[in-house]
């Protein structure tokens, strides 16, 4: 097999189908008249981190909750580790970790008490010392949950989700409301899990989060798949670059499909060094916002 350059789509697609951890076909979920999910097709491959990205109300949480077995699909087929999650036996839960969007209750318990009890539900849970170190909560072990900060609670939530060493981890907006440092800490943790071979499916509305964590990004808009690709390929969808420079003391800019030629022409015209030259490729955010705008 030739080294993968991302171009041999057909060959990798064949492998991919065989290794789908999650398989979704024509999934539809209605709330009254509104279709929250509208004919969604999606495969999540073994060992990848896939981010479900989309504006509020795009159907991200509904899709996730159907995969988690918390909601029933109206139409379509969903297979998680080969099983229909709505009818999954309790043992299925040993292989799947879930980090919900909702706040953690039971504030009167200590971190240690909740983790220790939850560990007894699983056949081969993480060692608690190692887990607390990994999520950065070793100091909080004896503290009541109600005194933890928002970031610490979120990390405890993630610890509960991974406690049973799941093959597949669902994370619903894992870093919403966290400060930048806590977000980075959680990203490191999620990446470590992915590196250990777990498949991760997360929802987010942060573009930087998707870019940092995801192998592939699925953009969900109005319950449909608007795009699905690697973050870098998605970013290249916006071909045009913007060239910024200063001329006659004034900032100038031009959008160009051929920025190298634009810069060469500028250099020739200005005779050498171009003052304050910046060539900006569109960010993932630009591409995403354009995508959302097109569907609006």
């Amino acid at each position, binding site marked *: 097999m030739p080294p993968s350059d991302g171009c041999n789509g057909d060959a990798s697609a064949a492998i991919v189908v065989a290794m789908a951890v999650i398989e979704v076909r024509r999934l539809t979920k209605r709330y009254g008249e509104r279709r929250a999910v509208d004919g969604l097709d999606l495969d999540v491959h073994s060992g990848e981190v896939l981010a479900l990205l989309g504006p509020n109300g795009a159907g991200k949480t509904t899709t996730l909750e159907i995969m*988690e077995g*918390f909601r029933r699909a109206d139409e379509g087929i969903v297979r998680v580790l080969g099983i229909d999650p709505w009818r999954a036996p*309790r*043992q299925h*839960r*040993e292989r*799947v*970790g*879930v980090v*919900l969007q*909702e*706040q*953690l*209750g*039971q504030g*009167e*318990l200590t971190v240690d*008490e*909740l983790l*220790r*009890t*939850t560990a*007894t*539900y*699983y056949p081969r849970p993480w060692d608690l010392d190692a887990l607390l170190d990994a999520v950065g909560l070793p100091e909080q072990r004896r503290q009541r949950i109600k005194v933890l900060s928002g970031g610490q609670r979120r990390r405890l939530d993630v610890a*509960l*989700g991974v406690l*049973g060493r799941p093959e597949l981890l669902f994370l619903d907006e894992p870093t919403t409301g966290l400060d930048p440092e806590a977000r980075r800490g959680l990203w490191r943790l999620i990446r470590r899990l992915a590196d250990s071979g777990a498949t991760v499916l997360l929802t987010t509305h942060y573009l930087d989060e998707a870019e940092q964590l995801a192998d592939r990004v699925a953009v969900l808009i109005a319950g449909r798949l608007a795009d699905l690709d690697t973050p870098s390929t998605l970013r290249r969808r916006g071909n045009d670059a913007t060239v910024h420079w200063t001329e006659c003391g004034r900032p100038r800019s031009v959008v160009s499909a051929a920025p190298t030629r634009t810069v060469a022409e500028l250099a020739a015209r200005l005779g050498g060094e171009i003052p304050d030259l910046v060539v900006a490729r569109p960010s993932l955010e630009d591409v995403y916002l354009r995508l959302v705008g097109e569907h609006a």
Partner: protein
Amino acid sequence: MNAVRARVRLELTLFARQKDTVVFSFLLPIVMLALFATVFRDDVGDGHGATVRYAQYFLPGILAAGIGLVSFQTVAIGIAVERYDGTLKRLAATPLSPTSYFLGKCAMVLVASAVQVALLLAVAAVAFRVPLPTQAGPWVTFAWVFLVGTIAGGLLGVAYSSVPRSASSAGAVVAGPVLLLQFASGVYFNFPDLPRWLQTVAAVFPLKWIAQGMRSAFLPGGFAAAEPSGTWQHGTAALVLIGWTLTGLVLSLRTFRWLT
């Protein structure tokens, strides 16, 4: 088995740390016993000349009320709150079986209820000189009424926890009917003095039978004559309580949902 043991420990920890449950279901009956026994000083008679002090007469009723509060009320409110604060949804995402969850609740209730009943008996005996039975018979009666009553209450609490529609309404939706049932079942009033129709309604529910069973254990035998049927009706009490236990079990298993 590990999970069940861990659940029991967790439930007991939570019970002890939730100040409102400790105060309103665990300590309230003890305070009520102390209060009633201090305020009401008249003796109560069996209608044939024998009398007991009010504290002794009130003890069986408050034991029954305490069992109902710690088992039914604690479990029903506790699960309703856990359903709406996201705790049950988190448990639903784990391999924990509903049966292990129920067993944790029931064992917690048995332990908490046993401690409460022991405290009630101690306060009655020490502070109010209530004579406790010296023979094995009444204690055997006490033991089975306590055991079956508590388990029935706990399981019915699991089943009833689906009724409240929000965490904030759970307290009222559960405590209201419990309070009415206490009045109707002869906890605060002399049961034989209640109107016949109210006695009939109360006889459908388990609390009346727990109270009657407790009266049979802690009152002199002559008081049986004052009961509506003229006897303690142990057989009927056992049948009704076991019937409610099975009903609670079936309802819990059939209606329990982790999710809202």
